[in-house]
């Protein structure tokens, strides 16, 4: 069923992001879905820079900048402060990168979700510390080369699997959890609409490919994010108040197609790509299992 994308633009032209930036599209779609009555809180991240130096702004909503670890707590304070004044119809949105979410901000995120504030936490996942120049994050996938996991004589690419924050939020029983990507904007908007219907904490992890850090041509951003889903490197799912839905409506491709489209994986040999393939398959089976378990529980 087609979902229309709202025409309203809350993001003005004239930002300072890199060409082909996935995070700009993520914000643009999120705000389209949220609407004008929205307050955005961003920690240290690309999005702390993208709107431009003061007094310039690229968003037509109030935007609160905070230190790196403060997203979860700042949206808690914003929500309660606004509610105290009867402004319960404002959407309060934390919009943080994967470093600010999976790593330094994880404690604050977990606390905010546990306390049950009526807030949205959007993690835009570009799988690295892109604002400081492509360093490894907990959300960086196995095999990726970053500036802190460089491939030199030692082939020191990231050897650990991706830390998946959305899974952690399900484990914490957050009322609404979803993954999305900018390649499927209707899906993304629909998920935010679903989230808006839930009173309480909402967590959405959006894959936002980064041409600068993933080393692919900027015009390929949408294509890469679509390949991420098709190769099952970034499965799309939704967890709504205890029910789990895995999106299987796409043409599956082999993980090597995704890997070979980006130079951050260029160094991987066949065995290492096999490792990724095995990981992707295991995770897919786990998600299928979750779908079964959660639907049985609720049936």
């Amino acid at each position, binding site marked *: 069923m087609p979902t229309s994308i709202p025409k309203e633009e809350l993001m003005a032209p004239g930002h300072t992001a890199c060409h082909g930036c996935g995070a700009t599209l993520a914000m643009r779609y999120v705000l389209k879905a949220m609407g004008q009555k929205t307050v955005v809180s961003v920690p240290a991240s690309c999005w702390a820079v993208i709107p431009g130096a*003061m007094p310039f702004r690229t968003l037509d909503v109030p*935007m609160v900048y905070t230190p790196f670890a*403060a997203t979860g707590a700042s949206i808690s304070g914003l929500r309660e402060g606004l509610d105290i004044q009867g402004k319960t119809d404002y959407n309060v949105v934390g919009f943080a990168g994967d470093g600010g979410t999976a790593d330094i901000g994880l404690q604050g995120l977990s606390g905010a979700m546990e306390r049950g504030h009526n807030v949205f936490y959007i993690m835009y996942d570009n799988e690295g510390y892109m604002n400081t120049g492509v360093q490894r994050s907990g959300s960086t996938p196995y095999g990726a080369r970053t500036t802190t996991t460089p491939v030199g004589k030692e082939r020191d690419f990231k050897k650990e699997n991706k830390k998946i924050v959305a899974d952690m939020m399900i484990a914490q029983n957050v009322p609404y959890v979803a993954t999305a990507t900018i390649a499927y904007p209707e899906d993304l908007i629909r998920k935010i609409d679903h989230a808006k219907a839930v009173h309480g904490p909402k967590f959405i992890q959006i894959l936002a490919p980064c041409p600068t850090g993933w080393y692919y041509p900027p015009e390929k951003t949408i294509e890469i994010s679509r390949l991420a889903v098709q190769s099952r490197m970034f499965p799309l799912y939704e967890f709504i108040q205890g029910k789990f839905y895995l999106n299987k409506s796409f043409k599956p491709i082999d993980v090597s197609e995704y890997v070979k489209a980006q130079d951050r994986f260029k160094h991987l040999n066949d065995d290492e790509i096999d490792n990724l393939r095995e990981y992707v398959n295991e995770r897919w089976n786990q998600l299928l299992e979750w779908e079964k378990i959660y639907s049985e529980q609720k049936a």
Partner: protein
Amino acid sequence: MKSVTEFKTIMTGNDAVAYGAKLARVKFISAYPITPQTTIVEKLASMIANDELDAKYVEVESEHSALAAVFASELTGVRSYTATSSHGLLYMHEMLHWVSGQRLPIVMSVVNRAIGPPWNIWADQSDTINQRDTGWMQVYSESNQEAMDTIIMGYKIAENSEVMLPLMSMEDAFILSHTSEPVTLRDQDLINDYLPDLDLKFRIDIGNPMGYGSYDTPDGTFMELKKDMVDSMNKAVRVIKDETEKFNQMFDTNYGGLVERYRMDDADYALIAMGTVASTARFVVDKLREKGLNIGLIRIRYFRPFPYDDILEDLKNIKAAGVIDRSVSFGYAGATYSEIVSALYGKINIPVSSFIVGIGGRDVRVEDIEKIADTVRNESSGVYWINVKKVI
């Protein structure tokens, strides 16, 4: 004519500051418990649970989050409050800058406690002295009454349009926080007259969207904004004096502005102290006066803004002074000492000594202060650690 419902009761310093926050009509509280601050936030939670206080209390998972939440709620235009101690304050350090840089007039209580290692929960002002350069005003109370009243005066001063800087209000661990004293609970109507509701000029408003804390560049306004914080801190000197005087008149109290002077009018020698050590020093001053020694006490209430002008005025006819610090700046002396010496430089040339006392809650006894006064009277200058055991 309003009926005045002030009444005297007995309470701990921590209960007193909780009542201070209640009287200031805080609407949002977020805090993380840490000894010896804990009973403040327990008291506030119980006030809310019993409908004595109409506020939202958010129990966060860390002190960093406590101040981040308070930062955000204040930014929506709601008067907000938190409290902490020691390691909790250090954990907030980043947010301290964020609050002052955003010009949010938040008031926070800090129960002064030592910083480990080794672990130590007792009185020591190193935690707040560490935060000297964060852009917060700092007040050190000597009694539970003062601790309560300072929360109320603190919001009035912080929210003044000339100031718009946050304020830290200190109590010494256990000496005030957990010790009961007579305290007069202020009349709410009178406090409402003294302290109007918060009316934050720049706050979250979807009708007027702005960026709060956007990045700035070397040729932007960053440097000017930092200078403006310094200018506002300087303007706060007058505001503190005015607002304290107003409070004194309304409530028949006698707080000094930035400093409190005791028997200084004809003094030849001066002791300078901050917090509860001043009580012991005041006792010693009386004792030595009886013996014919012309000595007085300057109690520093505000460490930021620092009372440079008061100090110059107070010390102009003094032969020698001793500065008593319950904190230490490693590699030099007591922090108050270095402030005093810098205030005097090039203007008044008298011997000034630094006395480090009570670190980690070590008892500060009458005889310790007497020893200090003796050293001052001999017009020596140096850095002295008082009551340090010989370690074999």
